[in-house]
């Protein structure tokens, strides 16, 4: 080999100069392919194992529904749905009945007020006002969460505690006001 031949190869970028690089690249691709094949084989085995067990795939499941601790955010979330559905199925029909009874005449109105001022009637009305305040305050909390705020653990905990307490307080205040106004 003439002494300048290697320099000529380097400067012109002749293919034979790149031979070691090509070999290295081929080896790399081959090794990668081998690793990928092995992984595919493992996944296939796991799928087959899962299929035999009647499961679709052996994948990690999240969240773990069996492992959790009760927190106020869960309570307020469940109360939001429960109070909303209570208002929808009982509160609003009562509201319509009230409006209907006003429009249908004095006897109809007295029939309505007569039923609603019995002890079960008062219990339903007090329950519905609590549901209204709970759902309203919880809904306001949802507006804040919708804006992307209030997810910090302490903030979330604080407002989850505050919502039902504020609802209880408001219900008490409202019925105290009604009691003072009508009886006291």
């Amino acid at each position: 080999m003439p002494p300048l031949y290697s320099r000529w190869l380097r400067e012109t970028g002749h293919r034979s100069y790149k031979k070691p690089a090509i070999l290295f690249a081929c080896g790399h691709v081959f090794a990668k392919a081998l690793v990928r094949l092995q992984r595919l084989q493992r996944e296939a085995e796991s799928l087959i194992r899962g299929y035999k067990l009647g499961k679709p795939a052996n994948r990690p499941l999240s969240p773990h529904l069996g492992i959790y601790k009760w927190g106020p955010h869960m309570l307020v979330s469940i109360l939001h749905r429960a109070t909303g559905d209570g208002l929808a199925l009982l509160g609003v029909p009562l509201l319509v009945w009230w409006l209907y009874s006003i429009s249908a005449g004095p006897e109809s109105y007295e029939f309505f007020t007569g039923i609603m001022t019995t002890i079960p009637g008062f219990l339903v009305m007090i329950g519905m006002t609590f549901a209204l305040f709970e759902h309203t305050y919880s809904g306001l909390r949802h507006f804040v969460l919708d804006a992307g705020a209030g997810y910090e653990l302490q903030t979330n905990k604080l407002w989850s505690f505050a919502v039902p307490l504020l609802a209880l307080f408001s219900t008490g205040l409202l019925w105290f006001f009604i009691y003072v106004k009508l009886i006291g």
Partner: protein
Amino acid sequence: MGSGTNIGKVRGLGSAQEGAHHWIIQRVTAVGNLTLIAWLLFSLLRLPNYEHELMIGWLSSPLVAVPMILMLVSLFWHLRLGLQVLIEDYVPDHGLKFGLIILLNFFAIGGAALGIFAVAKVAFTGVVA
């Protein structure tokens, strides 16, 4: 259910492009409910008594009848959306789900119509006294 992966089952069965609309209208009616329920509570608490004659006079005022009708629309719209989610979450059977959502629509539209008619009747037939 086949043995495919979960993502494989979902592909090709994408969203109906309706989720955001439902979500936004639920929030819009929530703001309406908040305002109008607050109005109703304060308006009712300011009344001296709840005799039938006074209720007729109160309800026949345009400044009571109109917000009352708006409140009924907002409330029934909001509760229709909320109960729809309840049914979709807890009723797995497709036929029953379909039937319940039809019932829900009848309940929401029928209830709102009854309430609005009652308010309109009082408002248009006017003061008894």
